[in-house]
């Protein structure tokens, strides 16, 4: 009955979510530090990719379990490979795994989630929900192992397995969001003026779920590199090259004999990256969460 209320509450909404988010994020110290660390690791990875460093990871020149020395900063493993450059090289592996899995599973989850959310209680929704239910009910390692065999030899079997399992969470979240969104005026409007559904879903609805996708992507990234470690330990992980997982797997026996370098190096790298990513992802969540007023 009184027009003031709406009128005055309008302008707050109209500020862009992203603008605000970035504004908030910039003020979040831990978030910025975390981001810095992540970028640093990414830089290392790029360097390896470009062949600037870490290329010597496979040389077997060195001594057996040599301690730290000028030419081998962090010592060597049993067959005399330089642990430092192996760890460095593994950074690339980690990002490879993380990126591929995060990006693809997010896209997959986003699209399927949007579809099932938009066509709720249609056969599309039913089908997708069923698929998600099924994938969630297969024990993870069994599933990964199966895929790993399925694509034995292919370097990407592990990635595919992870993607196939990780997308469901994203999909569920997106689905929920889309169900909320699709009753909003702007969607109604779009429908009213007879836009094709494809356009509505992907032009009008999807963009409003990007904040979820972004956060999910970071979470999946972390999940991926952590799973890689365990899978590599179980012999289902990285096929060629080297990864922190392989290094730790390698170290599981050594550590009991007091050769800690392999173990400590790999797990430190892993821990720092994962930690940074977690913190980054948290701050991102806070920044993107419209409800959050303050710390």
């Amino acid at each position, binding site marked *: 009955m009184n027009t003031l209320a709406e009128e005055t509450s309008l302008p707050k909404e109209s500020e862009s979510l992203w603008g605000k988010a970035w504004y908030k994020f910039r003020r979040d110290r831990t978030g910025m530090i975390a981001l810095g660390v992540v970028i640093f690791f990414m830089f290392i990875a790029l360097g390896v990719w470009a062949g600037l460093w870490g290329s010597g990871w496979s040389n077997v020149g060195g001594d057996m379990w040599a301690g730290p020395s000028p030419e081998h900063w962090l010592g060597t493993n049993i067959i005399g490979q330089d642990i430092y450059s192996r760890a460095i090289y593994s950074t690339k592996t980690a990002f490879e795994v993380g990126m591929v899995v995060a990006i693809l599973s997010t896209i997959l989850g986003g699209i399927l989630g949007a579809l099932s959310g938009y066509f709720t209680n249609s056969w599309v929704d039913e089908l997708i929900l069923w698929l998600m239910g099924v994938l969630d*009910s297969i024990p993870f390692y069994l599933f990964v192992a199966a895929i790993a065999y399925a694509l034995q030899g292919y370097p990407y079997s592990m990635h595919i397995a992870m993607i196939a399992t990780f997308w469901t969470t994203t999909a569920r979240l997106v689905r929920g969001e889309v169900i909320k969104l699709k009753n909003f005026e702007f969607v109604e409007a779009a429908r009213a003026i007879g836009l094709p559904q494809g356009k509505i879903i992907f032009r009008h609805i999807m963009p409003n779920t990007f904040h979820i996708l972004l956060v999910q992507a970071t979470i999946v990234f972390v999940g991926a590199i952590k799973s890689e470690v365990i899978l590599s330990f179980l012999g289902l992980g990285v096929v060629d090259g080297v990864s922190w997982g392989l290094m730790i797997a390698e170290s599981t026996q050594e*550590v009991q004999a007091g050769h800690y370098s392999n173990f400590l190096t790999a797990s430190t790298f892993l821990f720092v990256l994962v930690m940074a990513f977690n913190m980054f992802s948290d701050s991102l969540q806070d920044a993107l969460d419209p409800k959050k007023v303050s710390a």
Partner: protein
Amino acid sequence: MEMLQYALRKFITGIPLIIGVTLISFLLMVYFGPDKTYELVGKNATEEQIQEIRHQLGYDKPFVARYLEYLKELATFDFGYSDSTGERVNSILKRTVPISLALITPGFVLGNLLGIALALVAAYYRGHWLDKLIMGGSVVGMSVSFLIVIIAFQILLSSNDGLGWFPVRGWNVYSFWDYLRYITVPTLATVFVALGYNTRFYRAVIVEEMGRDHVRTAKAFGTPPGELLFKHILKNAMIPIITRIMFSIPLVVISGSLLVESYFGIPGVGKVTFDAITTGDQPILKAVVGITAVLFVIVLILNDIFYKLVDPRVSLK
């Protein structure tokens, strides 16, 4: 009674799920899983022997026939004999599942209870240093790889270089005392890892509940904090909490803790399953997958029933 009917109805709707899980996994193991034949042939095998074994393993039957067989096995809960040891799958499960449960449960329960406790504290002191401390801790916990934790704990607590208080590995449990000695390290590791995730999750849930209007109302009517937290907030927070716990149960029961078991050499179902995966012991895999799927459906049902118990708004229609 209405509940029973409901459960039945629900179970029937759960059948597609079971079909899906079994079908997909069976496809994977039949067409892509490792080929058992070559584990069974001798050092100096002949083509003939290889064919014989393939035949005995049923590898030469058409897929559909084998799948139907599988469904029959699942329906009758008789999965035949392991392809590696020849032991009855059921007796294998009967032997290993209890061990896994005994191994995992303490960590699982502790992980959740502590998680909830810490979450309550953190949520109650939201924004204060205590909250920040707990949350910081849980992020750290989340960031350490399970494998690393296991290795570290084994060195620190079990090996001679460390304290050497607990058995390094194995499972020679004959008394409650043995039991405690053998589960301590795995349990600690499990809790350590689970705690981070749980605390965060539960805190989020509880904080959300705290923000609800009715909580403010309760406050406005002078409800003391204890009552507020445990009666008004926790009862409402129950639903997500229960859901989370419920849905982690099937995997805990069946795949056990594969990592812990294979690292500590504990003959639980997790280890058996993994060996089955790597050696392509299909009868065991079929059992494990099938049972997991069924458990999931059951959990779905229990979960809904639980909703009803907690939340009057939910009706089992």
